[in-house]
C-alpha cells in the first residue's frame, strides 16, 4: 500500500499526487500518441470516434457530474457546434478560427438558455433541456440556407499550415489533431476542478443554500457551468462533423442525447475519467455485440442478426445491470478494484458502502 508523505501544499494542489502518477499519465499519453503505428486504419478511426465522444462526454460531465444539472438534450449543442464550424469553413474561415467559434457559439447559446433555466431544478431542468433540443432540431431544418436543411451539409476537409488533416486522406494527422484537442481540454477541465471555480460548481451541486451562504452566486455559477459544458460539447460536435464528413440533423438525435447521458452515467458521474471510460463503452458496445453475435452464430448456429433492435436491447440490459449493481459507474468500480489491490489483503467488505439517501421531497426548496 502506497503511503504518500506530503511536504508542501503544492502536492495537494498539483494535478498528480506523486511521481508514479505523473509517470502513468505520461505513459498513457505516449501510448495514445503512437497508436497510429500500432493499429490499422479501421481501429484508428474507431479510436478517433471514441476520443470525440469522450470530449462530448466531458462537456456533459461538467454540467451533470460536477454541477448537478441533468441535461437530456445535449445533442443540441453537438449540432450547434457542428453546423457553426461547417458553415463558417464553407464560408472561407480557416479551421483554427472556425473551431473556437463553434465552441463559443454553443457555449453562448448554452449560457443564454441556462439563465432562465437555472431557476428550475432537477427534473424540470432535464425536461426543459429536452424541449430546447427539439426546438434546436426544428430550427436547424428551418435555417436551410445556413444548415442545408433536411438535405444536410458538408464539413470541409481541414488543412492547417499546408498540412492536410483530412479525415480520410490523412487519418493519422486527423487522429493526432483530435488527440491534441482532447488532451488540451482534459488539462483545462482538471485545472478547473482543482480551482475555486470548480469548487463553486460542486458547492452548487451539493447544497444550494449553503453555497449562497458562502457568497456563491448560484444563478451565475450554474449559467457558467452550463455555458462551459455546452461550449465543450460544441467543440466535440464540430469534430464529429468532420469525422462523419457529410451530415444532417439526423446525426444529432434524441438517441445521441441519451447515449451521451449514458456515457457520463455509466462512466462514473463526477469524474473526468468517467467520461473516457463511458465513451469507450458506448463506442465499443456495437462492436462487442457484433462479435458476440458472430460468435453465437458460429458456435450455435443461431443467427441473431435477423432480429431487429437486438443491439439496442442488449445495450439496454447492460445499462439496467449497471444502474442496479454499479451506480458509481465504470470509474467507481475501477476505484474499488484499485483500492482492493492496494490494500490487499486488508480490504474490508464495506469500504465503499453505498450511503442510502432516503427520499426527501425536492418540492420543498
Amino acid at each position: 500500500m502506497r503511503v504518500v508523505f506530503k511536504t508542501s501544499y503544492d502536492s495537494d494542489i498539483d494535478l498528480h499526487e506523486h511521481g508514479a502518477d505523473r509517470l502513468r499519465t505520461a505513459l498513457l499519453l505516449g501510448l495514445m500518441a503512437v497508436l497510429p503505428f500500432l493499429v490499422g486504419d479501421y481501429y484508428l478511426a474507431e479510436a478517433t470516434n471514441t476520443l470525440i465522444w469522450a470530449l462530448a462526454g466531458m462537456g456533459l460531465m461538467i454540467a451533470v457530474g460536477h454541477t448537478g444539472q441533468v441535461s437530456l438534450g445535449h445533442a443540441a449543442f453537438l449540432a450547434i457546434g457542428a453546423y457553426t464550424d461547417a458553415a463558417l469553413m464553407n464560408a472561407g474561415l480557416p479551421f483554427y478560427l472556425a473551431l473556437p467559434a463553434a465552441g463559443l457559439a454553443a457555449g453562448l447559446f448554452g449560457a443564454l438558455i441556462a439563465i432562465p433555466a437555472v431557476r428550475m431544478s432537477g427534473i424540470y431542468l432535464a425536461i426543459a433541456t429536452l424541449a430546447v433540443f427539439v426546438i434546436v432540431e426544428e430550427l436547424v431544418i428551418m435555417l436551410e440556407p445556413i444548415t442545408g436543411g433536411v438535405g444536410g451539409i458538408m464539413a470541409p476537409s481541414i488543412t492547417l499550415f499546408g498540412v492536410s488533416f483530412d479525415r480520410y486522406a490523412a487519418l493519422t494527422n486527423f487522429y493526432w489533431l483530435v488527440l491534441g484537442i482532447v488532451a488540451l481540454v482534459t488539462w483545462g477541465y482538471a485545472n478547473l476542478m482543482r480551482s475555486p471555480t470548480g469548487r463553486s460548481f460542486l458547492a452548487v451541486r451539493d447544497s444550494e443554500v449553503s453555497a449562497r451562504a458562502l457568497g456563491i452566486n448560484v444563478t451565475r455559477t450554474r449559467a457558467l457551468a452550463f455555458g462551459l459544458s455546452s461550449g465543450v460539447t460544441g467543440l466535440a460536435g464540430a469534430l464529429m462533423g468532420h469525422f462523419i464528413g457529410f451530415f444532417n440533423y439526423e446525426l444529432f438525435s434524441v438517441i445521441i442525447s441519451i447515449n451521451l447521458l449514458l456515457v457520463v452515467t455509466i462512466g462514473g458521474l463526477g469524474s473526468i475519467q468517467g467520461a473516457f471510460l463511458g465513451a469507450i463503452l458506448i463506442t465499443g458496445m456495437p462492436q462487442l455485440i457484433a462479435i458476440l453475435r458472430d460468435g453465437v452464430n458460429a458456435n450455435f448456429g443461431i443467427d441473431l442478426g435477423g432480429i431487429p433492435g437486438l443491439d439496442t436491447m442488449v445495450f439496454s440490459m447492460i445499462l439496467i445491470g449497471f444502474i442496479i449493481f454499479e451506480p458509481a459507474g465504470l470509474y467507481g468500480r475501477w476505484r474499488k478494484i484499485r483500492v482492493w489491490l492496494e490494500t490487499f489483503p486488508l480490504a474490508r467488505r464495506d469500504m465503499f458502502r453505498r450511503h442510502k439517501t432516503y427520499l426527501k421531497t425536492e418540492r420543498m426548496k
Partner: protein
Amino acid sequence: MSLLEVNDLAVHFGGVKAVDGVSFSVESGEVFAIIGPNGAGKSTIFNLISRIYEPTRGSIRFDGRDITGLKAHDIAKLGIARTFQNIELFDHSTVLDNLLMGRHTHRSTSFVEDILFLPKVRREERDHRRHVEEVIEFLELEAYRNKMIAGLPYGVRKVVEIGRALSIGPKLILLDEPASGLSVEETREVAFWIEDMRRDMGLTVLMVEHDMSLVNQVSDRVLAVANGRPLALGSPADVQAHPDVKAAYLGTEAA
C-alpha cells in the same frame, strides 16, 4: 454604533407571523444568544439576517450599512458567516474541500485564469490552504482532512460546519444551535471554541441555542423570543428569571 442592528423585524408566511417585531443590537466582540421554545422564530431571524427570507417589515444594519435589501450571496462578503441547524455540508467532498469553499469570498481569479491555472491561481490556492489550515488547527480537525463528509460521525460534521463558517474570515458568525445533538464533552468544546473565537479572533458571535448551560457559560447578553415576539433582553441571569420567559417555557400557574 453596534455591529449588528435589527429593527422591528417581521416576516409573515401567509397568515403565520413567524417573526413579529423583533429588535436588538449586537455589539462588536460580544456573544449574544437568542433563546426560546421551539417554533419561536429563532432560526427564522437567522434566515432573515442571512437574507434567505424576505422580511415583511423592519430593517437590518450591519457595520453601519443597511443590508435589508441585499441578496443572500452578498452577505458573506460583508463578513457574516453562518452555520445551519440541519448541517448543510457538501456531502460528496472532503473536509478540506468544504473548508476551502469557505474562502470563496476571498478569490480574485476569473474562471479563465482558473482553467489555465496561471501561477496567480497557484499562489492563491496556497494562500487559501494556509488560512484553512489555521481553522483546522483551531478546531482540531487534522485527522479528518481528507475524509468524505458522508462517512463522518455527526459530532465531527457539526464541527466542520463551524469550520466552514470560520474559513470565510468573518466579523460576525451566526451559530444555529451549535450544541444540538452533541454530548456533554462536545458541548464543552464548543463553549471553549466560542470563547476563543471572541478572544483570539475578535469575532462577534450571535447564536441560537436551547442548551441553557452553554448559554449561561458563554453569552454576554440574551434575547428571549416566543411566537415571533421578543420577551426579554438582558444578561443570561436576568432573562431566565423574567416571569414572561418562565411562562413561555413552563407555562403559568393554574388559576
